[in-house]
């Protein structure tokens, strides 16, 4: 084997390495990693109660914080262990127990307004993150149970404490059984 061929091979390999290195470096600086799609995917695993128990103003901000590495995945009591597991799987991290500092798991509940006591002050309306309370000033308010996420954010603004959380009304999710005749 001639020396020329060896030198040639080394040069070609070196040139290739340099070219690819420059191309990759340029791509890394110019093409943003798709942060939004990661936030979307994390957000899709959160229960969307918008309750703020994670101390972020809603599920999406918490998802953004997780994506940015600013928050751990153990702050979502409504999602419970299942959500932590799903997040751990998505982010390829070990699952961990819920951090009790952010509250413990509770049974699913929905807000209910005692219409006898409601004075129609309308203060709970903007507090509801999912617009599940119907009402107007000096009119009776009521909760659309099917849309309430049980976040409890309507409780503090109520001046007469007429809102309470009740167990989710039994929804029949019927599976219609096909039969052989």
């Amino acid at each position, binding site marked *: 084997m001639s020396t020329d061929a060896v030198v040639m091979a080394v040069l070609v390999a070196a040139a290739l390495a340099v070219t690819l290195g420059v191309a990759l470096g340029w791509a890394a600086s110019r093409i943003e990693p798709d942060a939004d799609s990661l936030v979307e995917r994390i957000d899709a695993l959160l229960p969307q109660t918008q309750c703020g128990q994670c101390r972020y103003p809603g599920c999406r901000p918490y998802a953004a914080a997780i994506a940015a590495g600013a928050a751990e995945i153990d702050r979502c009591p409504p999602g419970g262990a299942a959500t932590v597991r799903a997040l751990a799987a998505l982010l390829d991290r070990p699952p961990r127990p819920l951090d009790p500092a952010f509250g413990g798991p509770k049974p699913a509940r929905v807000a209910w307004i005692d219409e006898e006591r409601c004075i129609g002050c309308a203060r709970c309306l903007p507090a509801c993150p999912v617009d599940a309370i119907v009402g107007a000033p000096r009119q009776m308010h009521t909760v659309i149970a099917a849309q309430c996420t049980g976040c409890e954010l309507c409780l503090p603004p109520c001046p007469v404490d007429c809102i309470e959380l009740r167990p989710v009304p039994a929804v029949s999710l019927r599976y*219609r059984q096909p039969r052989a*005749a």
Partner: protein
Amino acid sequence: MAARSRFPAGLALDTHKQQACGTPIVELALPAQVVLALDQGTGYGAEPVVAVGAAVAMGTLVARTDHPFASALHAPLAGTVVAIETRAAAVAGGRSVCIVIAGDGSDRVDDGVTPVPDADALSPDELAQRLRAAGIAGLGGAGFPTATKLASARDRRAQTLLLNGAECEPWICCDDALMRSAADDVVLGALILRRAAGAVRCVIAIEDDKPAAIAAVTGAIGRRRDDALTLEVIPAVYPQGAERQLVTTVTGVEVPSGGLPADAGVICQNVATAAAVARWATSGEPLLSRVVTVTGSGVERPCNVRAPIGTPLAALIAASGGYRGTPLRLIAGGSMTGRALPSDEVGLTKAMNCVFVATRDDIGARLGAVELPCIRCGDCASVCPAGLLPQQLHRAALADAHDALRDLGVRDCIDCGLCDYVCPSQIPLADRFRDAKRRLDEAAATAQKAADARQRHELHMRRLQEAATAEHRAFEDVRRRVRQPGDDPTDGAD
């Protein structure tokens, strides 16, 4: 007709049909009271249109509905509405609001019940509407409103009406008894349904273990001289009478996963439904009664009974000579897909084809059986009529692995129970799959609710933001007006 290509697997079971089928249909005397569940077995209820105390005659409308999965209810006897309340009922969940009517012993008939002289002149749409008003629903076991099925068949231009006389489930023989005694009604109803469905052909399918019914229907078809009306004798294999499996056997076409028989060009109706349609056409009578098998080792004289809808099951059992021995379970339906009932006070529903009073002799083999680990013998896969892999599904169901359950086709499971039946480890597979399907439904509902909440939250935040900026802008406007250039702010604006 295409060469017969049978659905995969299935199993010839011990049918236990001779017990009830020996004697002619017993016509039940009008009971003292009927309990009409608003939900007749589909999970969707009608709305009462009578109040407690109202006098009703035979055929008076007592509950109406616009829901495609619910059917209207009519008083099956003359008398008074004595209660409208939640009671035990033969529906999933075990309870439904019921209209209770006490009979007055008369045979007054509602003025609205008049023969339909022009059934042949009605358009398919009008026919379907009249059948809906008459409360006619599938009598084969699902109780699905006939008119809804007809409409979906017309939408998909199904060409074949397949009349289901297979009756494959052990113990049940009410369709057999009906075909033997009223074959002409079945054929007349079939022709009306064929027109209402916009179909061109009608095939009546009967399993080969019912020679008397086959002979009766052959005779009735012969009297009609209609080339597009044929009889197909099919092998007696469980679950031959399941809609999808029957379509495959008779037409050679497989109903697509997630689709309807109409996607394969077929609409299925039960033979008893056809007979009810004929009854309506000849007398104008809405669906007031049905034939039901009362059987099992727990009754004295198993038989088939024609009884008003709503008849308390205790009255049906009394008509069969009463209880015998130690009944263990009262089951609506047969031994494979039947559902245990809470008490014998529940009323007969349109969907109930059999009252099975089971003793230890009938169902004892599996009672108290200890579930053993799966040994992966594959017997379940070799009998599954839907071509699924129950052992794999079982692993996925235990792990609650939703994606795996979906990929393995748990939705195509028809709850026939054959995998349970053959499992040497006595694993309650069908139960597990039913539960898995429910969990999939729940997960889908939760995901939908979360998606809705997210959308509502986004709109809420956008609205708050807009309100904030609008308020801010208004404030700025005022401030600009107050501090006009050159003005001395201390003078005041006005």
